[in-house]
């Protein structure tokens, strides 16, 4: 490798020159930072300033540059030097924008700026510019698992974007549930009548598409490899197992209806005149527009639709969630009757009529056609001679003993996702048993008892995608809905969350686009969301490894397997670069080229710690770069001031925080450490799903360290921060600084 040359560039624009003693900063960079080149520019991000840096890189051989100007989140396009290791000293958002412009504040503000210069210099010296993951695969074929509406849509959208697709369907025909529908809820103006289910059209498009290869009656026997180089074994029911080279995967395995046999109180199984929604679609299909007849051949003159049958159940016995589509479906099915014969009595018994999308127009149209909607909770459906009696509590009239007679009763039973094996339950049956004592865990037995794996991944962490609430596959429904915890494997449609056909098709399109992005990134050795385009990847100094397996167990993305000697085996293409493995490693052998125990450790040590009697405490902030650090930046943009005693270092995730940093900080005389990470748990906000949770668990043990050092436990403070905490965060920082002053200075200064 060529010789290293370090340079520091200090900007005096944006008011930095007026507020700070730039000459002193230069001296710090030169003397303490030991930078070979130190230059100041009045407008560093201007074309001229950038050209100055560029010239030094090209002509002077600068390999490492510390840019002391604004936050690392600002001006990223100007300061884009792909071959040079770059660190950023945050003098604008980190210093002058959060400090008052007063004479008294001048000294502490200058100290703050000098520390950030020291930190930037120390960091850049510990960094190497990453060259990208060499272990790439360039397969650009998309595997779509499931041939329903979602799967077919994903396949067609990917094909339209110019990618080859392999579509695997378990049954003998494409179409899934939609193919079983007589008609579907309307998708276009005026949203007044049911329309054709649209399956035939999609199937024809797929058959005519040369880019799409369809395997019917087939399942996935094995998925090995990594993004860009998956090897997928497809087992055909009659025939050999075929291996396909795959770049990325969309799992669109859909749902099953909740088993109506679990609802004997609603008459299912007791009388053939109670059916679920699928049962009614079959009757409607048989009638094909004519009068709808029951299984016994009798023409239906009155029908009652029971909404929320076995779903939205607060008792824990049945599904706790809403299917998201079955109000509209019941409206549609009531129309089947009214359109064939307006004299059929159709009553929909609902608790809340939920008509997403354009369902409101559809609902109105049904009312116009004479469908009666009644708000009530059904307690019982009793066979009554040739008909059924539906007993319900009328919620508008508060009639607890309301009854309706009907020839046929239709139950809207809700959905159960086809997510495969719950790998968390398999991995930790004991934990599951402990958790099931709580009411929230009760729905677990509702999910099929013996699910079979869908993807059969050969990952150490288990054969399927990790599940989230109620067996739906993991995703962050607001920020990154399609991302699962397996890189380049995306879920779409009702397997991800309850939804109707229109939503599923939108979902499928989005997932296909994400999968394409993942394949392309994998081919370039770049990371996927949320550090999309990141070229760094973790490496381990195996000679120091103790084979404790923490990294392989904790990796939220299943990126690390174990080799035959039981050392961690990194699959760089599966990695999201969160650094959780690095934070977990007790012997600190895991690092990224530009982010390591050293890069952060060097910054911590670079800060100048004033002595015990200076009344200038030092508080270290380790802030998650996804939420907390942007919140700090935005607080600065709003000029929300905070204490001059804090020194903030962004971390990739709270999960990447190695406890050594905290021990080091306390040992070198910091008076307090603030950890800022995303919300964890069921309503998590962590961009790496489990990172903040794992980080917090690890750091919960830091109390012992503090005790051993004879320090107060308040010296380490864990704060949950959301990106919106722009106003509250500075306040919390100040509160903590006040508290530290109350506790007193650390006795560890000056060692």
């Amino acid at each position: 490798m060529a010789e290293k040359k370090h340079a520091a560039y200090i900007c005096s624009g944006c008011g930095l020159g007026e507020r700070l003693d730039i000459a002193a900063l230069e001296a710090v960079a030169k003397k303490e930072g030991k930078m070979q080149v130190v230059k100041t520019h009045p407008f560093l991000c201007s074309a001229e300033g950038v050209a100055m840096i560029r010239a030094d890189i090209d002509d002077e051989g600068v390999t490492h540059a510390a840019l002391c100007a604004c936050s690392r989140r600002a001006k990223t396009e100007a300061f884009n030097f792909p071959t040079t290791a770059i660190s950023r000293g945050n003098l604008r958002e980190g210093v002058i924008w959060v400090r008052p412009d007063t004479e008294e504040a001048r000294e502490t503000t200058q100290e703050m700026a000098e520390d950030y210069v020291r930190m930037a210099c120390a960091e850049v010296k510990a960094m190497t510019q990453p060259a990208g993951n060499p272990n790439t695969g360039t397969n650009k074929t998309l595997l779509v698992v499931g041939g329903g509406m979602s799967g077919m849509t994903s396949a067609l959208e990917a094909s339209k974007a110019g990618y080859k697709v392999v579509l695997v369907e378990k049954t003998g025909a494409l179409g899934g549930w939609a193919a079983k529908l007589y008609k579907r809820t309307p998708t276009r103006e005026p949203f007044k009548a049911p329309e054709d289910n649209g399956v035939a059209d999609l199937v024809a498009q797929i058959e005519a598409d040369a880019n799409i290869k369809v395997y019917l009656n087939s399942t996935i026997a094995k998925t090995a490899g990594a993004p860009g180089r998956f090897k997928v074994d497809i087992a055909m029911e009659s025939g050999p197992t075929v291996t396909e080279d795959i770049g990325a995967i969309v799992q669109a395995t859909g749902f099953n209806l909740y088993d109506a046999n679990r609802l004997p109180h609603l008459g299912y199984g007791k009388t053939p005149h109670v059916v679920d929604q699928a049962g009614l679609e079959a009757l409607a299909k048989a009638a094909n527009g004519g009068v709808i007849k029951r299984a016994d051949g009798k023409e239906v003159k009155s029908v009652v639709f029971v909404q929320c049958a076995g779903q939205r159940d607060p008792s824990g016995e049945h599904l706790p969630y809403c299917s998201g589509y079955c109000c509209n479906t019941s409206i549609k099915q009531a129309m089947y009757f009214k359109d064939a014969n307006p004299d059929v009595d159709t009553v929909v018994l609902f608790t809340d009529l939920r008509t997403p999308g354009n369902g409101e127009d559809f609902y109105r149209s049904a009312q116009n056609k004479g469908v009666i909607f009644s708000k009530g909770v059904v307690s019982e459906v009793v066979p009554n001679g040739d008909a059924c009696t539906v007993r319900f509590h009328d919620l508008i009239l508060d009639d607890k003993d309301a009854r309706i007679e009907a020839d046929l009763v239709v139950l809207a039973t809700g959905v159960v996702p086809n997510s495969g094996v719950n790998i968390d339950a398999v991995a930790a049956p004991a934990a599951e048993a402990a958790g099931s004592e709580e009411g929230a865990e009760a729905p677990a037995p509702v999910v099929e008892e013996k699910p079979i794996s869908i993807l059969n991944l050969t990952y150490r962490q288990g054969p399927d995608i990790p599940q989230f609430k109620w067996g739906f596959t993991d995703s962050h429904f607001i920020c990154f809905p399609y991302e699962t915890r397996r890189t380049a494997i995306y879920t779409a449609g009702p397997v991800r969350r309850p939804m109707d056909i229109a939503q599923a098709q939108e979902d499928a399109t989005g997932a296909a686009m994400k999968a394409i992005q993942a394949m392309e990134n994998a081919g370039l050795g770049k990371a996927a969301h949320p550090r999309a385009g990141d070229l760094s990847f973790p490496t381990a100094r195996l000679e120091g490894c103790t084979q404790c397996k923490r990294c392989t167990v904790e990796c939220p993305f299943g990126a690390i397997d174990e080799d035959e000697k039981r050392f961690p085996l990194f699959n760089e293409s599966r990695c999201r670069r969160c650094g959780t493995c690095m934070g977990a490693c007790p012997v600190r052998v895991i690092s990224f080229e530009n982010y390591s125990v050293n890069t952060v450790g060097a910054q911590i040590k670079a800060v100048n710690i004033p002595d015990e009697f200076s009344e200038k405490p030092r508080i270290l902030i380790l802030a998650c770069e996804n939420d907390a650090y942007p919140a700090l930046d935005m607080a600065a943009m709003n000029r929300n001031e905070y204490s001059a005693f804090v020194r903030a270092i962004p971390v990739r995730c709270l999960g990447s925080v190695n406890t050594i940093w905290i021990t080091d900080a306390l040992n070198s005389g910091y008076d307090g450490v603030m950890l800022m990470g995303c919300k964890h748990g069921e309503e998590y906000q962590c961009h790496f799903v489990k990172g903040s949770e794992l980080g917090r668990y690890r750091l919960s043990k830091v109390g012992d360290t503090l005790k051993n050092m004879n320090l107060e436990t308040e010296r380490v403070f864990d704060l949950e921060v959301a990106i919106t905490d722009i106003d509250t965060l500075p306040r919390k920082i100040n509160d903590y600084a006040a508290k530290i002053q109350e506790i007193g200075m650390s006795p560890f200064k000056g060692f």
Partner: protein
Amino acid sequence: MSNANEQMAARYKNNFLKEIEEQAEMGEWVKMCMQCGVCSGSCPTNFHPGWDHPPQEIFMMIRAGKREEVLTSNSMWMCTSCYNCYVRCPRKLPITHIMHGIAEYAYRLGLAPKMQPTLHLSQTFWNNCTKTGRVNEVKLTQSLYFKDGFMAGIKKGLEMKDVALGLVKAKRLNIFEALGGGHKCKDIKGIQAMLAKAKELEAKRKAAKAVA
């Protein structure tokens, strides 16, 4: 009158919603209610006692087939025609008009509550006003005050005497009209012919519906 009631009840059997749709003016709107309750929440009379069911509940009762309860209810008669519900209904139901339609239907069937003040006023006002084409204020007030007996009427009259004197001074009230006559419109015959024709047309329409 109860004859008409029995006829209708027999004709529509359990389907009271259909009966209201076909027989009551604006009744076809009842099925479009989505039970949000904005009408009930907006109704100023709802703050007073003696109001059996707000509009939303009346509509639900119609769907639930509670015929007797709806038609004998005082609810429709409590409506002050403020049009709050009409304006606010997210489904754009003409609620005020529906309430009047149901009230009128109940009256037609002879099921409206006897001596209900609104009903009494409507009847009295109509009779008074159609006689000469103009309202005889003195007579109208008299018949309202003495509705519940002689003593009650005297008491009410004394209570309101200051208002009456004010009206007399402002020449808005002529006490001699108590003797009869009073101001009238120019062409009484024309007005009465017009009203007779309107009544005839309405009767024809309702008769057609009743038989159909």
